[in-house]
């Protein structure tokens, strides 16, 4: 029953078997089932980001979204104190003013409240967070009957923390994955979404996919049976469609056949336009990329993205707009298949050159930190010291994301040349100051929409009116 459980008095976590029985009794599909159904129906499952501090408000938020936007999966977005295991801060803010939290502190609220949320809506829940060490959060989620859990030992470390060693986060996520393996044996397949979005801004597709391949291989080894590979929309149509289409090919190449793999598009994760109309153009565009790229799921954005955590109405509107991409009336759209095939080839080549040396070493948990330390693995704009961020991404003239510097990535001469040529052709590389150019590339969509790209004091009021 709703609203009866208060935080703090949560009893010890139930056994895995009890939680599996609870999920079965819940009478709703698991996230893995929803993804499978979406793929079979050739549609994109839709899911918002959503999380507020207060339990009562979280309940209302989920119910409102469920009722008015009919998403396929709902989210508990976790606050950033909980993500960083600063549980005391989470609890302190929760007590002082829950509205100051940027997400739902599930650990502070406790697994029983998680069950209340789960019972309040008809669709399965996913926990989305950003925790280098998510063990307690995962156990709480499972106890709450939540059937999808985002993250990975690389992707939830490097963008989200400063000093957690990769070997620590990989070990923590190995425990999570191993529990998923146990749950699978008990009959409950938990969907594990890998956060290929990374630092979200100008992420080259092959970096995103390479990290996901490594995390997926590690997860499969622990017994994970359903993997969602999340890819962040970069903004270039053919490149993004190719990246989504690469997912099943990479799965066939690097994963055992009994692991189910889905591609997920995260709607544009970089600097969003501030004006509603422009943001909505981008939202629809993202949804079309997901549909045309064959994604099983789309994580939606809202027209308030540039301003702050969205209100319920904006979240509903974002989902409804994105759902237009599932229209049966879009068969008329033809794509530039030649260009997509070309991008796909290069993506597969680049990913292979990045991951295959790492995969050739049997102990991934040792090899991955070593490779990052040497820059053989790398990500741009790392929040963590444990990636070198020597690679510098830039946009080519047509908006595609390329490598302006490849750092110590073990790329072949062919790949290097193609990146250089692409940036040179666009007339962008080497022009002016790198930081200036990079900033322009980051602000790409502001430019597309003619929104002022100054660093502040923009034309329109910052908050939507």
């Amino acid at each position, binding site marked *: 029953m709703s609203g009866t459980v208060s935080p703090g008095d949560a009893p010890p976590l139930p056994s895995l078997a009890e939680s599996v029985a609870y999920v079965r009794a819940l009478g709703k599909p698991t996230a893995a089932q929803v993804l499978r159904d979406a793929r079979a129906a050739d549609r994109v499952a839709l899911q918002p980001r959503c999380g507020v501090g207060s339990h009562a408000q979280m309940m209302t938020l989920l119910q409102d979204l469920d009722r008015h936007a009919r998403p396929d999966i709902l989210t508990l977005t976790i606050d*950033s*104190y909980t*993500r*960083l295991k*600063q549980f005391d*801060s989470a609890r*302190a*803010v929760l007590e002082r003013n829950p*509205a*100051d*939290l*940027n997400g739902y502190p599930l650990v502070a609220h406790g697994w029983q409240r998680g069950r209340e949320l789960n019972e309040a809506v008809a669709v399965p829940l996913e926990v989305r967070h*950003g925790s280098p060490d998510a063990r307690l959060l995962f156990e709480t989620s499972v106890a709450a009957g939540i059937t999808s859990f985002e993250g990975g030992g690389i992707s939830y470390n490097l*963008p*989200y*923390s*400063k*000093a957690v060693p990769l070997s620590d986060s990989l070990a923590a996520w190995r425990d999570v994955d191993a529990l998923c393996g146990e749950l699978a044996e008990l009959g409950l397949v938990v969907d594990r979404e890998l956060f290929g979005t990374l*630092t979200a*801004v100008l992420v080259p597709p092959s970096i995103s996919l390479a990290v996901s391949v490594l995390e997926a291989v590690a997860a499969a080894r622990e017994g994970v049976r359903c993997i969602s590979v999340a890819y962040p929309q970069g903004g270039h149509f053919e490149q993004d469609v190719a990246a989504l289409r690469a997912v099943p090919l990479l799965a066939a190449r690097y994963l055992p056949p009994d692991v189910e793999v889905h591609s997920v598009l995260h709607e544009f994760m970089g600097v969003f336009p501030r004006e509603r109309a422009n943001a909505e153009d981008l939202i629809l565009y993202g949804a079309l990329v997901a549909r045309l790229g064959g994604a099983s799921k789309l994580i939606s954005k809202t027209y*308030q993205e540039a*301003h*702050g*955590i*969205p*209100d319920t109405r*904006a979240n509903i509107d974002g989902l409804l707009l994105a759902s237009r991409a599932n229209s049966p009336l879009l068969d008329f759209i033809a794509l530039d298949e030649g260009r997509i095939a070309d991008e796909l080839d290069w993506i597969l080549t680049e990913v292979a050159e990045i991951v295959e040396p790492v995969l050739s070493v049997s102990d991934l948990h040792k090899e991955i930190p070593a490779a990052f330390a040497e820059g053989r693995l790398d990500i741009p*704009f*790392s*929040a*963590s*010291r444990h990636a070198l961020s020597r690679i510098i991404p830039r946009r080519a003239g047509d908006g595609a994301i390329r490598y302006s510097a490849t750092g110590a990535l073990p790329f072949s001469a062919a790949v290097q040349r193609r990146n250089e040529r692409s940036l040179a052709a666009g007339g962008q590389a080497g022009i002016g*100051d790198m*930081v200036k150019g*990079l*900033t322009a590339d*980051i602000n790409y969509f502001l430019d597309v929409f003619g929104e002022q790209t*100054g*660093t*502040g*004091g923009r034309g329109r*009021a*910052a*908050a*939507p009116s």
Partner: protein
Amino acid sequence: MRHETAQRTVILGVAASDSHVVANHLIAHALRARGFHVVNLGACTSVAEFADAHAEHPDAEAVIIGSLNGHAHEDLHDLPAARAAGRLGCPVIVGGNLSVGSYKHTSDHERLYALGVDVVLTDLDALPPTLDRLRAGTTPAATAPGAYAAVPTVTS
């Protein structure tokens, strides 16, 4: 006075619970391009870490804290205590997206001033002139919150 040293030093970082570093990287680049010595502490930096860095670099003319994830106020919760303990005796500048939600209020800034933040900015372009102005002014009264509130801020 410390700002008479050859190279101007600033301490830069992102607030304690916040891992958004893209703007942080770009600010560091931009200030270095202007000749600053930037001690960049990066993501997820607590008040204690900022204070430690200031102790290590007592010539730093300001501590510049970015906050994007909405947790600025809570993340700076320990600032008054640090100041009371005689630490962080230089101006503290905070900028970014300073509260949770899409509708911003002036109280978002006021409560940061109440914690002892000296300047709240949202416009990056305002940073260099603000540093210059702080340097030209009197030594900041570390314990007088809001001493620099007169520096124009853009409330979004």
